[in-house]
């Protein structure tokens, strides 16, 4: 089960609104490399995992991603406080505002709403773990790109925290993949599908 603890994993306290930045950062809420996709990917893949270490790491990282989703939502929320119609229009935030006002909607920076087609659950442990490594790397890349556009230290600080978590998760998934391959025939890692063959 999940139970709510009424706090963020890492504090977010942004003094100055910046709708232009919010429009970019929201991509980590509902974009192709964002936190909702990360969480759903890991929490859905875990059922087919054949080894206990893999079930544990997917559950824990999938759970942590929900805390990251909340942090990104908070950044977007705080960046869009007390805006005038002029500020909204100048920032190009009007195209978002017209549908969502300042509600936080899972959407990519390009405007595409969140889709489960941004991730896969194959039931094949090798395919899923490789995807997870790739996903962490892509999320880190997105945070790096956000940092190119964000000069407000109040924004950079929590974004850097989130970026660092992607690196740790990449490492843990790499270890997970190694746990898997250590148990397979080293002459042919692709010979069988452990999660399918088990049943």
């Amino acid at each position, binding site marked *: 089960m999940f*139970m*709510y*603890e*009424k*706090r*963020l*994993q*890492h*504090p*977010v*306290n*942004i003094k100055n609104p910046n709708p232009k930045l919010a429009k970019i950062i929201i991509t980590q809420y509902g974009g192709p490399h964002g936190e909702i996709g990360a969480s759903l990917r890991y929490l859905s893949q875990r059922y087919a995992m054949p080894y206990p*270490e893999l079930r*544990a*790491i997917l559950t*824990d*990282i999938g759970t*942590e991603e929900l805390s990251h989703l*909340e942090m990104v*939502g*908070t950044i977007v*929320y*705080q960046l869009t406080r007390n805006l005038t119609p002029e500020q909204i229009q100048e920032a190009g935030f009007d195209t978002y505002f017209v549908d969502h006002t300042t509600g936080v909607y899972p959407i990519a920076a390009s405007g595409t709403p969140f889709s489960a087609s941004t991730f896969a659950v194959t039931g094949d442990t090798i395919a899923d773990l490789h995807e997870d490594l790739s996903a962490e790397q892509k999320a880190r890349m997105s945070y790096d790109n956000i940092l190119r556009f964000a000069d407000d230290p109040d924004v950079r600080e929590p974004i850097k925290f989130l970026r660092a978590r992607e690196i*740790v998760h990449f490492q*843990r998934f790499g*270890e*997970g993949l190694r*746990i898997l391959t250590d148990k397979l025939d080293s002459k042919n890692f692709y010979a069988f599908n452990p999660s399918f063959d088990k049943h």
Partner: protein
Amino acid sequence: MSEKEALRRRIYAVEFASWELHLFLDTHPNNNEAAKKQEEYRERARKLRKEYEEKYGPIGETPHNTSRWAWISDPWPWEKEAN
């Protein structure tokens, strides 16, 4: 930053270290050194939480430890006042 806020942050920093070790132990369940370190952080967090709760009341509101009024009226995590 108030003394209360500084203590709150210390607790969450220690608990974060414990969480990090928890993830590490998922893929290294036989690593006794990491398990020992995690136990140390857990113990530190327990002591700091006790100190906080004696001085200021519950920390890290959950449905199990908070009053119905605090739950709805204390700032929500996305509000600046909560951070």
